[in-house]
């Protein structure tokens, strides 16, 4: 398994996608800090300080890591490298497990980069301009940081699972982005249907990261933080398992 994970890292390292998505992560994290701090209704109260660190996972910025995960499988189909990959690793379970671990680690690394950018840009800004100081030991700050690690790592796996399930790069990216960034926001406005929101990825993310204020969205109660993690785990594992058991087992011709 260590070998397979190593091979997956070599695959990532030897193409350029990781670099462009990392660059985007740095830029987007910086912009998120500006969006959180600069406006007049930005972070002004000590209770709101954890929002600085929750921003990357709480907004569609997580799509960057989702896309990284999607490409982790669909590129193999696009360029038919799936053939040599499966020749080397005939077990679809072993392959998908190795990819899940790899992309969870990659997701955590991107989360780390985002958090570092948020800290480097946001912390001095808040402290110098608004005299808001970050208390690293504060449980809400800790929750935002660890929640970001967990959520972004899981979005790496969610992307991977959707990629494994759909195989087609364009379809998987478009479906994923439409669902996560558009459809869920529409869904929460529709009566009756909106009750499924807590069980969607965004509903689960909010359940994990909401540290202050209302825990309802449009009158729908969010799950507990733990419940949110469980929902995200299901979103991560079910498509990946289906991908390994069904899609990747289909004939590769």
């Amino acid at each position: 398994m260590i070998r397979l994970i190593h091979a997956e890292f070599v695959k990532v390292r030897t193409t350029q996608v990781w670099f462009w998505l990392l660059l985007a992560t740095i830029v987007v994290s910086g912009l998120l800090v500006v969006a959180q701090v600069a406006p007049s209704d930005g972070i002004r109260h000590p209770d709101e300080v954890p929002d600085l660190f929750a921003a990357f996972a709480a907004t569609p910025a997580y799509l960057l890591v989702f896309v990284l995960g999607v490409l982790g499988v669909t590129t193999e189909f696009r360029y038919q490298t799936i053939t040599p990959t499966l020749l080397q690793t005939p077990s679809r379970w072993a392959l998908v497990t190795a990819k899940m671990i790899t992309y969870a680690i990659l997701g955590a690394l991107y989360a780390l980069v985002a958090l570092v950018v948020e800290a480097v840009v946001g912390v001095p800004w808040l402290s110098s301009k608004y005299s808001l100081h970050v208390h690293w030991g504060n449980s809400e700050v800790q929750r935002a940081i660890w929640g970001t690690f967990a959520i972004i790592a899981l979005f790496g796996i969610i992307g991977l699972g959707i990629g494994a399930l759909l195989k087609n790069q364009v379809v998987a990216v478009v479906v994923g982005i439409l669902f996560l960034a558009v459809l869920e926001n529409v869904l929460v406005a529709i009566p009756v249907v909106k009750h499924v929101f807590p069980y969607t990825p965004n509903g689960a993310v909010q359940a994990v990261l909401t540290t202050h204020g209302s825990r309802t969205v449009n009158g729908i109660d969010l799950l507990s933080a733990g419940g949110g993690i469980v929902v995200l785990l299901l979103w991560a594992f079910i498509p990946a398992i289906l991908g390994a058991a069904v899609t990747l087992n289909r004939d590769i011709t």
Partner: protein
Amino acid sequence: MAAPHVTTPPAAAQGGRIVVEDLSKVFGGSVRAVDRLSFTVEPGSVTGFLGPNGAGKTTTLRMLLGLVRPTSGRATIGGRVYRHLASPTRTVGAALEASSFHPARTARNHLRVMCAAGGLPAARADQVLAMVGLEGAARRKVRGYSMGMRQRLGLAAALVGDPRVVILDEPANGLDPEGIRWLRGLLRHLADEGRTVLISSHQLNEVQEVADRVVILNRGQLVQQGSIAELTAGSGSVLVRSPAVDTLITVLQEQGLSGDRPDATSLRVRNATAAQIGHAAFVAGVELHELTEQRFDLEDLFFALTQQVPGAYAAAPPQLPPQAGYPTGGPR
């Protein structure tokens, strides 16, 4: 060309036998691509896997390699189905098509991925690149590679694990005459080391030059398998042209020889030598205008078995004399 240094004990060579048993594949419920196919491929030899386009060659190879699930039957390598091999990279090296590379990855990095997955040292990538003559292009992205370079890279990928079984689908495609000559030498070398070498091809002349055995497939079914010598033995004929064909027929019949008559002035005599016929004609005083031994070659056998006329076989190159621009790899 640097030769891979390998010591393959006889016991390990035995583990390299490919056995296809009663293998069938039905696509979409109705298309029977492979139909109850059985054959074996022995270690220490080069086996050509032949058949017209659509005969089921690639589907068979993909079933053998665990990429396509058989509808029934099984294919094993050293007694195991591919998915159950303990270390596939070190056991079987396969090159199926020349396009399975990420265009933005370099040749070296493509092989390094394989080294990582197969638990091989990364330096092995450079070794096999040198073996296939790509060391100069190792750090170039595959995007800029020619067809021939991709074939060589595919071959390098197949050899990276120093496997005892080598399976190549159309390895000569895109190679220039020099490359084909080199490939032939390499395949011979691999087989002589005790490895099992299975190559599919539509270039019958190429296969005849290098293969010891052939497995011929048509419409998903086995048509013939065996050594080339066995399959073509006793099937030679002699073309005789004479103004007195009728007299000649009588003379030959007395000698117990038979054949057919393609046109008014010629005969094709089976199982005879030119000397035999020339002598009989001379003794009987029959004038001869032509006396040509015709070797029944793989291409004739192939068309005879697959019921196709040569002209209909679009992919086959025009018949060239073996030495015309394609130097042979040695006496066979």
